[in-house]
């Protein structure tokens, strides 16, 4: 598989064409330095999360009241928190929580959105009306407030925080998917497929979904940062992860009492949230360059 074989204008097989397209996408992505940086950070985050128990220098739950609120030092690289726990170890273990929340929301919300949006757009008529009015209702609430209400009603925990975030973030995807569906559904190739006897389900799954997915992926990647912030916000308000889970938002909340004199307690998890959110934004930008067919790839 040489570069020429991948970049040829006249691919011999389907496989060659697909791989060629992927490679071209990668080239476009690679041209965006920041996007690559974002990708690197996220790969690192994945590795950290995967190997957390092995790389974290100390037990993230081990308390030492005599050693509390210590500034960064050789023993505690990022200092210790109010109960004398090693902040670095907590951040490393917290990456699992963050990835779990972000990953789960990113799996649930777009799927719900895609389903509702495409069904609404494809079916039209009263189905469209009903589904879109429901979407409107959800959109009418501020996202975080709605999530707060859900968590408050369900009881604070990570699972409920994920659920609340997923339930509140699907409407945007539904709108997007419906708009895409409306432009696609009267296309000639859909008509052709229909003439060949394809049923609505087959059209939806085989012909419409694949075309909506790319714009959804871009949107999801750009939304990731927002999801991280919302999750951290819930944690900050005590409605997400419960102690002693080292969730980053909850860690900031723990540190805010000491923010004037012991800045590192809140600043370190803040930095972590900042870096990861930024990485997701960079990645999202890069993915848009690659996946958005209407983008400026002249």
């Amino acid at each position: 598989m040489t570069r020429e074989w991948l970049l040829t204008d006249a691919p011999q097989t389907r496989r060659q064409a697909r791989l060629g397209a992927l490679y071209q996408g990668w080239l476009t992505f690679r041209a965006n330095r920041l996007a690559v940086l974002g990708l690197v950070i996220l790969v690192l985050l994945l590795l950290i999360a995967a190997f957390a128990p092995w790389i974290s220098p100390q037990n993230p739950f081990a308390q030492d009241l005599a050693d509390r609120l210590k500034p960064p030092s050789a023993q505690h690289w990022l200092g210790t928190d109010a109960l004398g726990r090693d902040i670095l170890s907590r951040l490393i273990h917290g990456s699992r929580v963050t990835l779990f929340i972000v990953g789960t929301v990113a799996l649930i919300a777009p799927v719900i959105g895609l389903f509702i949006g495409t069904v609404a757009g494809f079916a039209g008529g009263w189905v469209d009306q009903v589904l879109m009015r429901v979407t409107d209702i959800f959109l009418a609430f501020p996202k975080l407030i709605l999530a707060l209400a859900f968590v408050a009603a369900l009881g604070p925990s990570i699972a409920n925080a994920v659920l609340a975030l997923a339930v509140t973030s699907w409407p945007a995807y539904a709108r997007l998917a419906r708009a895409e569906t409306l432009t696609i559904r009267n296309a000639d190739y859909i008509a052709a497929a229909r003439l060949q006897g394809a049923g609505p389900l087959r059209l939806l799954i085989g012909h419409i979904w694949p075309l909506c997915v790319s714009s959804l992926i871009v949107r999801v990647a750009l939304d990731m940062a927002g999801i991280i912030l919302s999750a951290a916000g819930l944690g900050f308000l005590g409605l997400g992860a419960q102690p002693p889970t080292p969730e980053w938002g909850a860690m900031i909340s723990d540190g805010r009492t000491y923010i004037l004199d012991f800045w590192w307690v809140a600043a370190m998890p803040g930095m972590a949230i900042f870096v990861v959110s930024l990485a997701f934004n960079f990645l999202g930008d890069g993915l848009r360059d690659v996946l958005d067919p209407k983008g400026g790839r002249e």
Partner: protein
Amino acid sequence: MKQFPLRAALLATAVCIAPIAHAETPADTLVVAAQIDDIISLDPAQSFEFSGNDVDNNLYDRLVDFDPLDQNAGIKPSLAEGWEVTDGGKTITLTMRDGVKFHSGNPVRAEDAAWSLQRAVKLNKSPAFILNQFGFTPANVDQMITADGNKIILKLDQPYAQSFVLNCLASNVASVVDKETVIANAEGEDFGNAWLSTNDAGSGPYKLATWRPNEAVQFTANDEYWQGAPTMKRVIVRHVQESSAQRLLLEQGDIDVARNLTPTDVEGLAGNDALTVGTEPKGRILYMGLSQKDPILSKPEVVEAMKYLVDYAGMEGSFLKGQWKTHQNFLPEGYLGASEDNPWTYDIEKASQILTDAGITSGTVKTVVRDIREYIDVAQTLQGAMAQVGLTLEIQQMTGAQVLDAYRARQVPIFIGEWGPDYADPNTNASTFAYNPNNADDAKLSQLAWRNSWAVPDDMNKATIAATLEGDTDKRIQMYQDIQQEYREIAPIIPLFQKIEQVGIQKNVKNWTTGGAVSSVFYRQVTKE
């Protein structure tokens, strides 16, 4: 979260308003910064909030009172110069002091004192139960409390301990108000409650100058005061919400006393030569209630082990520093019969041994904790210690209202929170920690023992009642010591810490007191050098 802009704004205002030079408050004026937004009413028959009682304590006299400079000495004569117990303890006759005048100029008579108590019982606001526990009701109080010449006669339904009755007469609800003035300002059947909420009709060392809610209370000295005119001719209590703003004002000399400093701000005062930190134990107890409904916590061995799983010294020396001190008895220091025995220390091995001997090596307890920093930190420390002996504690943070609802429904396995005494007698705590007449779910009692589903043994229930009826004060003290002794051994509601109030004070201010564990703030003995 919402505190930050407010804090910033306050800091900014404080910085702008404060003069650059070090200003000093006038020599005959005491300026205090405090959070006084809890004041609802200044009527002593209604006020049941810390700040409201702080105000009333200086506007009114009571029949008996604590000495501001020595609260541990117990009850002293005040408007009553003496008392006598007759009828086997069921009647107390107090003799009024001669020549004391109200702020209005009216003389203080036994009639006023009797009417004040009757009024509090009849108004029946939140603090009225302190008097009603002696058998007074709005219907019978006119017969039970009577004035005769310069004597006021209290008829009780039981031969209550003299110290119990007197301690309750020293509480704010028993303040003596000026009958003629109050009646002149009464509206309908309100006994002057509306008027007295914002005005004063007392005989105390200070008169109320103004009260502007959430802003300030101003006092002027009562120069005719029967115990001598106060040195501070004016006292101004300013409402300052934020600790950092209070600290800034104190450092600039704009105030003499800052009452709500966080530990961090108290530490920040350490290097300042002009300032000092005053420390007084208060009545509040931080305790851990182990619900006896929980299958694990109801085992006596677990209760015993839990006492060794609390890092008392560690917490007292770290995040509770200066705010709480280790105290393992339900009667706070400063109370009649209080015990200073603190037998438990943090000892994982001992706890582990107790549990292993009982065959308990694992278990999970799920509990809810109010989302207050200190409680969460205490809970997490406990969680860490429990994990070391194989017990898993799952914590869920909730708002105060949610936790309280669950607690009232007996659904909190491990409750971590505070209890504040209602009046200055040991019965206020004994009757809630060590008394539970009916442990049934549908009894819906307010006792802490009930809320933790603890069926208090019969002998302890009886001892608690008996202690309210013991006429001999020394014997009564011994009875409370004995109850606490037994309580320490068996009770699953474990007192951990006693509150300490730290105030920042200018060095030249002397004799400041917040009233200790038993009373409210006194201003009359304060002087400046």
